[in-house]
């Protein structure tokens, strides 16, 4: 019995070393086949001209824009998500919303930062909320969907600026109100078409409300925007 124990002791003593050694071959086996694929892919996309890379990404972004404007197919945005589109939209919206910065010294910085913070912070909160409510969509997929669905509001911002160039009276206010309300409803509807599928059916209202609030705040910022001439 003592001999058996003595035999066992070295075995147990070596366990602490064995754990690390076991990790390496397992991970080595798993990673090596992938690395050989990675070598080929990296070589092929690294050597292509920059124009090709940019155009390929732009085409992907444009395709997703089309999916947002006509939200009938709900898998393309989720399958290959990317954050270029949301970044482009966020930056263009923030730039357009700070147009009245010329005369007042302190406007440009806080306004741009404010829009940025609202959009990204709001998207993160909504994503966390939908995950906590039992959603099956991943973190970045949700960020991608929410960012792309800002497109109607960005279009509305463009229209508002053009309308404000013409006149600043009550007629223009009514036009702007109608445009912003329509685009806000469009944004909310488009994003719920993508997001609500990943939720249990009786909890859709719980996910839709924060999205509604988020786009409402952005729409409100667009509506109350008034450049100083």
């Amino acid at each position: 019995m003592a001999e058996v124990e003595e035999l066992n002791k070295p075995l147990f003593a070596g366990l602490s070393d064995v754990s690390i050694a076991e990790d390496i071959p397992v991970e080595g086996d798993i990673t090596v086949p992938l690395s050989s694929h990675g070598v080929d892919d990296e070589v092929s996309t690294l050597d292509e001209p920059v124009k090709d890379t940019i155009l390929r990404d732009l085409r992907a972004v444009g395709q997703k824009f089309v999916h947002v404007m006509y939200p009938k197919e709900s898998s393309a945005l989720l399958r290959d998500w990317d954050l270029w589109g949301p970044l482009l939209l966020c930056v263009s919206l923030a730039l357009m919303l700070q147009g009245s910065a010329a005369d007042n010294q302190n406007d440009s910085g806080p306004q741009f930062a404010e829009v940025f913070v609202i959009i990204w912070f709001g998207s993160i909160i909504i994503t966390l909320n939908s995950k906590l409510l039992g959603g099956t969509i991943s973190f970045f997929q949700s960020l991608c969907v929410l960012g792309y669905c800002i497109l109607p509001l960005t279009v509305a911002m463009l229209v508002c600026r053009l309308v404000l160039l013409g006149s600043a009276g009550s007629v223009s206010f009514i036009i702007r109100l109608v445009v912003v309300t329509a685009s806000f409803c469009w944004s909310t509807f488009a994003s719920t078409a993508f997001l609500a599928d990943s939720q249990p059916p009786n909890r859709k209202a719980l996910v839709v409300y924060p999205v509604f609030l988020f786009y409402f705040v952005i729409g409100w910022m667009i509506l109350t925007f008034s450049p100083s001439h």
Partner: protein
Amino acid sequence: MSASEGTKNTNTEPWGGFDDNIIIQGSGSAVIDMENMDDTSGSSFEDMGEMHQRMKEEEEVAEEDGGEEEDGGEDGEFLGMKGLKGQLGRQVADEVWQAGKRQASKAFNLYANIDILRPYFDVEPVQVRNRLIESMVPLRMINFPQKIAGELYGPMMLVFTLVAILLHGMKTSGTVIREGTLMGTAIGTCFGYWLGTSSFIYFLAYLCSAQITMLQMLSLLGYGLFGHCVVLFVTYNVHFHSLFYILWLVIGGLSTLRMVAVLISRTVGQTPRLLLCGTLAALHMLFLLYLHFAYHRIVEGILDTLEGANVPPIQRVARDLPNVASAVMNATVKSVAVLVHSQ
């Protein structure tokens, strides 16, 4: 080729894998010839092709020279000093990466695991609606500890709604400038009130031996903000002074009474009850008063005096109104005042 050694061997790859041999040999040779430094030695995969090539060459060389090369072939089995250093560096880098990844994922799973909060968001829309309505209905039964729902979805949504309403109120009170500061102020005020007051009342409850947990206190106070949202939404659009006071007393009072009743039902003794409920009632009602006046003072100032450069002293955020903006705002407010007074 790798089976020629008698030591423990974990290789299964054709190119030899990360061999234990290399470590032993690397640690054995104390002198490393710096002249043979490889430019690409490090963690790049392009080395693989190079190594493969060199391995084949070594094999051919070993076959030609036979026994004489055997020892040399075994020592630098892989390939001479160049490949050896790169191999060693790669393995070290690999180990460091694995260790770091393990640590990071452990820390992440421990602290950033949102599944901790998942049970508190397990609600149905009907339940949320019922709790919203119940938050305005004071209880009659205070001898029996009342049940408080421990959920965080409703309170969080209410806090965000309050932030949105505050933002709207600040916009309509004419602050065209420095919106960045005001946005931060709105979020900071609402969340600070919710979290700070909950913590403070929880601490007082601990002192007074009341039976309430932190989650329940957060939930209770969060739902109590529903009355605030309603009052502010109405009074930021209808600038009628006495209307605000009536709503403050009625709606604010109802939600405060509800919270106070729940707390009384969970506390024993007259003095603790008085302390706890008095503090909560005071904080809750004063917060509503503060929210209304801090963000609407400037409208009242202009209504009363109709002057442009009158900045009230209570403003925490400096609002410099240039003459153009204040003139425009004067005109709109005057017309609103005329409309309101004519009704």
